[in-house]
């Protein structure tokens, strides 16, 4: 039963990543693209958590921690870049 739930969850997460990627390509302004990229980072962490639960490998959770850290730093850096680009 858990295999079915994992398969359904991974499918939905992949679909959400596709939707966020469409916004990343189409986004009319730069903050739209940054938001889409941030959402893709969160979705990667979500996929890693589901894979860690289904394979019982702790290493995926370590990768998820590092991914969350880098995603946050990247988002803040992009926001600083947007603010500096204004002037």
């Amino acid at each position, binding site marked *: 039963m*858990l295999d079915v*739930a994992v398969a359904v969850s991974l499918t939905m*997460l992949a679909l959400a990543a596709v939707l966020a990627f*469409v916004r990343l390509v189409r986004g009319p302004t730069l*903050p739209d693209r940054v938001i*889409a990229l*941030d959402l893709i980072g969160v979705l990667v962490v*979500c996929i890693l958590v589901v894979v860690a639960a289904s394979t019982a490998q702790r290493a995926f959770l*370590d990768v998820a921690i590092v991914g969350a850290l880098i995603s946050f730093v990247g988002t803040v850096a992009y926001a600083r870049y*947007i603010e500096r680009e204004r002037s």
Partner: protein
Amino acid sequence: MSEWIAGGLFVAGATLALLAGVGVLRMPDVFTRMQASTKASTLGLGCLLVGLAIRHPDLSFVVRAGSILAFMMLTTAVAAHVIARAAALSGAPLWKGTVIDERPHGDSPGLPPSRPAPGAESLPGPEN
């Protein structure tokens, strides 16, 4: 029994993440997209991590899940605030149905006046 609870939490978390994706694609301006992304992805990741902790109740899994959850709860709000501030300072267009905009208009040199979206009619949004 714990497998059923964990599976239900996985599906619920993935549903919330999918709603975040739909919201980012369909919402009309930067700020509404940001709130759709942030709120749903935080709660979705929380559901997935609680499901993981129920599925594997080892100390190593629970500690890692708790640290990811605490870190994401802290940083998602900060990142959303920083993006929203950058978007507001760079004069991102607001949705035409925006009710209130508390930024000062014109008389503050640091803030550009908010302007309506150039193609506001063609943006997706609620029809009425």
